[in-house]
């Protein structure tokens, strides 16, 4: 039964021939604007695919944002249950212009011979006039039509329904259940895909132990649309489909006009000739304990100190623990949380699939609007580096961050052999790749940092020793050897040794120069003596005469 809502003046219906935007992230872009307005659309999917959520979201958004009142008839669930479903999402409650009509086909439905849908269409006419309905959902119509024993009658009745919707110029969404192969509809609506203007498939794929949902437009009569299968997730905000339009090069970015973002580590900024390019993505790799989270925290702290909004997403670790750990090097992230600049969130990696995780992160981004973001570690999302669902999700995240000019630092764990396998694919996508490592020598384990790549930056190729202190992080020059290098205590000892040697060498040179000077003076004296002696001899040989006397 339709809920008792006072009749109201019918709102002006949008012009026919245009599209009806669903307002579902990604969907309207794929559909080239929205569902065919005034035409029927079929949404096919198996149980749990999210058909009902899709339909409810399209109706809620239509009523809320497009001024199109909606009518929802479910043949499988009562209006109360549907209302609760709407309220369970962050859609702002049930809009006044969304109406539910109970059409539950229960076990007590009795039939004696064929029935037809003429009465249902008359009821729809009545409800549409009463509430000024623009969008209609018939959810689970196969439950009803499937009770018709004759397949010819079933087809006739469904065609009658489609003709009715076209004549009334109302946007209709029908749901259909997939029977095993998604291409096959349950018998109740078999063949209806040929009569509708648009067919959307919601499917589930499995890759290894990972499941993902995909959204695909199998048919859109008279309209261009994106044709691939796009992953989607269902979050507290409903369905979000991962779709990015073609990349439009940003000439400002190419020209370096966007500028740089300091990392918060002065020495690293020097190596990067100023910092990270604004809107770029940096991958920070290293084995556990190499200070990836520390550098990430410094980056976030620096952003907030500049007054930028920032988001730090922690995988499988609680924000309060990370905040406490970072306090040991003088970072006070809590103050940034308290003043609203920093949002700290965490994700349990095993609790959901990669698409779901990325959708949740994108929701946080939409809510908080950060200029800088940290994902720590990304390798919790891209676990194997070979699962395409995980890689697709991570790439989608990176592309979205780029499109929004969000400067990102993502950490990634390396394996025991120090291979960056977990995110090897991502390292090719990232703009900057900084690698952290350990060097063990003379009984010490010390951290070193190298910039593997930094697109668009004439960066240093030197290895630096990363030194953690109470006052933060500094990057010291390492001591190069013919083969390898010295770091830590060995470096300091060698440097002190070199210093002493240099001082000794300098003294030695000074002593030598002094000796040379003394020798020179002695020689000058000797030369003077010999010259005098020579003059004496010459004087005696001339009989005491002067040189002038001989002429």
């Amino acid at each position, binding site marked *: *039964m*339709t809920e008792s809502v006072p009749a109201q003046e019918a709102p002006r219906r949008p012009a026919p021939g245009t599209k009806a935007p669903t307002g579902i992230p990604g969907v309207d872009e794929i559909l080239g604007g929205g569902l065919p307005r005034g035409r029927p659309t079929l949404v096919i999917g198996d149980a749990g695919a999210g058909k009902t959520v899709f339909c409810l979201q399209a109706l809620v958004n239509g009523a809320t944002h497009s001024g199109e009142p909606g009518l929802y008839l479910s*043949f499988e669930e009562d209006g109360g249950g549907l209302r609760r479903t709407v309220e369970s999402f962050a859609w702002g409650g049930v809009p006044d212009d969304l109406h539910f*009509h*109970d*059409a539950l*086909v229960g076990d*007590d*439905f*009795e*039939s*004696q*011979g*064929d*029935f*037809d*849908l*003429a*009465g*249902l269409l*008359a*009821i729809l*006419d*009545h*409800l549409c006039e009463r509430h000024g309905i623009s969008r209609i959902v018939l959810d689970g119509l196969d439950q*009803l039509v499937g009770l018709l024993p004759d397949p010819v009658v079933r087809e006739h009745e469904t065609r009658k329904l489609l003709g009715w919707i076209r004549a009334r110029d109302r946007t209709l969404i029908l749901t259909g259940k997939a029977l095993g192969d998604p291409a096959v509809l349950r018998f109740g609506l078999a063949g209806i895909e040929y009569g509708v203007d648009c067919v959307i498939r919601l499917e589930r794929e499995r890759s290894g132990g990972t499941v993902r949902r995909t959204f695909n437009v199998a048919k859109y009569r008279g309209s261009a649309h994106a044709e691939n299968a796009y992953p989607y997730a269902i979050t507290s905000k409903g369905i979000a489909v991962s779709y990015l339009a073609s990349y439009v090069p940003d000439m400002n970015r190419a020209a370096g006009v966007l500028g740089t973002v300091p990392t918060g580590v002065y020495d690293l900024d020097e190596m990067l000739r100023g910092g990270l390019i604004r809107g770029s993505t940096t991958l920070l790799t290293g084995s556990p304990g190499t200070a990836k989270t520390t550098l990430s925290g410094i980056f976030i702290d620096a952003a907030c100190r500049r007054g930028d909004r920032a988001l730090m997403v922690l995988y499988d670790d609680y924000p309060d623990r990370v905040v406490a750990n970072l306090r040991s090097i003088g970072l006070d992230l809590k103050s940034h949380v308290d003043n609203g600049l920093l949002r700290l969130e965490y994700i349990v990696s095993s609790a959901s699939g990669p698409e779901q995780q990325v959708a949740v992160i994108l929701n946080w981004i939409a809510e908080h609007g950060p200029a800088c973001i940290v994902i720590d570690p990304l390798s919790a999302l891209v676990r194997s580096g070979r699962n395409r669902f995980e890689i697709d999700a991570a790439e989608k995240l990176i592309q979205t961050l780029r499109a929004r000019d969000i400067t990102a630092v993502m950490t990634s764990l390396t394996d025991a052999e120090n291979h960056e396998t977990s995110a090897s694919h991502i390292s090719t996508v990232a703009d900057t790749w900084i690698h952290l490592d350990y060097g063990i020598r003379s009984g010490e384990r010390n951290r070193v940092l190298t910039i593997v790549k930094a697109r668009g930056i004439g960066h240093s190729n030197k290895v630096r020793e990363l030194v953690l202190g109470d006052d933060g992080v500094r990057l010291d020059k390492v001591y190069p050897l013919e083969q390898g290098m010295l770091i830590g205590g060995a470096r300091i000892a060698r440097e002190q040794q070199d210093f002493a040697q240099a001082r000794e060498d300098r003294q030695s040179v000074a002593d030598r120069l002094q000796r040379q000077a003394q020798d020179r003076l002695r020689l000058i004296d000797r030369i003077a003596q010999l010259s005098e002696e020579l003059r004496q001899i010459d004087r005696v040989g001339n009989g005491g005469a002067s040189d002038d006397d001989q002429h």
Partner: protein
Amino acid sequence: MMTSIDHGAGLRLRLFIVAGSPGSRIALSNLERVMAEAGIDRASVEIVDVSEAPDKAVAAGVLVTPTLDVTRGDRHFQISGRLNDVPGVIGRLAG
């Protein structure tokens, strides 16, 4: 053999149809046979054209046509379809 229907129980029949629909015409004809064979008073039967009075169908929770809405005492049920099986319908009304 005529099935006995206890008319004292306050039998009320409403047949929801769409005028002009072939299925509705057949259902009307079959209902006439049910009434004749079961001795049901015409006064206890109402024919509702859903295209004229959709609010009555909405109020009764009717989804399709033809649908026979049956109230008998505190019992209430609906039979959808053309009512082709007249003895079966009478049996259901008597049950």
